[in-house]
């Protein structure tokens, strides 16, 4: 009699390692998610008086997701210490959280030219907006607001309070606009970063 192989579900959810292999990453059905997200937007739309309020509502939903996700991913990575550097944190979002959510890393992570405290994470084809055609009357609405909320939640619970917003940026090379998540860190974060940099330089 062969011994039963322990299934991966025998491991507690937070003890499961982050899958390195793409095929091992557990996924939910995109259709099911798209319907849920569509209903979430309809629900928020019924209760919001303006597009800004609608985006705010999505952002608040995302915030809670972000707080929990940072917790879960850090447990699974067995990260025992917190990374105080801004770039480390952003890279974590760009190349650990993004694959966990969307099955690929974000397409771009860059610092804004104009300001030191602004960073941008871009995705050329954000999964959330793939099926959504935005009518003219809602032209300023960005479905990526949910992701902005998730990023804000992750940053906030890691100790990087920031203002995060989602924008569409038209691309000359493609018909689809890129979703850009704009992150503006609090002054306190920038001060800490400056202190860290000074300490490094000795």
């Amino acid at each position: 009699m062969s011994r039963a192989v322990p299934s991966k579900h025998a491991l507690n959810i937070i003890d499961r390692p982050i899958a390195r292999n793409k095929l091992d990453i557990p996924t939910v059905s995109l259709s099911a998610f798209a319907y849920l997200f569509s209903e979430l937007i309809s629900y928020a739309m019924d209760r919001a008086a303006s597009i800004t309020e609608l985006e705010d509502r999505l952002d608040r939903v995302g915030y809670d997701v972000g707080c929990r996700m940072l917790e879960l991913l850090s447990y699974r990575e067995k990260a025992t210490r917190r990374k105080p550097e801004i770039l480390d944190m952003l890279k974590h979002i760009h190349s650990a959280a993004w694959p966990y959510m969307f099955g690929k890393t974000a397409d771009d992570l860059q610092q804004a030219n104009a300001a030191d405290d602004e960073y941008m994470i871009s995705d050329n084809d954000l999964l959330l907006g793939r099926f959504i055609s935005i009518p003219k009357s809602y032209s300023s609405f960005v479905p990526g607001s949910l992701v902005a909320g998730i990023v804000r939640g992750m940053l906030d619970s890691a100790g990087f309070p920031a203002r995060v917003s989602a924008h569409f940026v038209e691309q000359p090379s493609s018909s689809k606009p890129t979703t850009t998540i704009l992150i503006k860190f609090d002054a306190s974060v920038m001060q800490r970063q400056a202190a860290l940099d000074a300490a490094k330089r000795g």
Partner: protein
Amino acid sequence: MSLIYSLYVINKSGGLIYSRDFEPSAKLDLNDTLRLASIWHSLHAIASQLSPAPGCGGIELLQAESFDLHCLQAPTGTKFLLMVEPQCPQVTALLGRIYELYSDFVMKNPFYEVEQVIKCELFDEAVDLAVKRYPLMLLAAPQQALVLGPLGA
């Protein structure tokens, strides 16, 4: 050369909710289109009741001298009509693909109200692309029914 003339979508109460013409020469007047939609809806309903065959689902194909009209009825009662050149093969597969696109780009769009007129840019684009790729579909599967690929394929 197999040509696709037009696509119409009829909601479950017989109203035309979408129409798109792919050949400028085969364009129908808007009133004619609306009339066609409601007449087809009624004929389809009558046919499924009058048919001696048990479990008849209505008219699937109407053949005329200058065009074929293929119809796919979804379980929800929404009907997809394709006007094509006579004797076009594989139209059922194309209709299936369009139904799939409808459930992706129309039903998953929070700005679409069910049973209302479809105004979704992404759906327009996806339908255009599917019709453009129709000749390739014929090359890929000459005789047998085409298996629908996964989403985004």
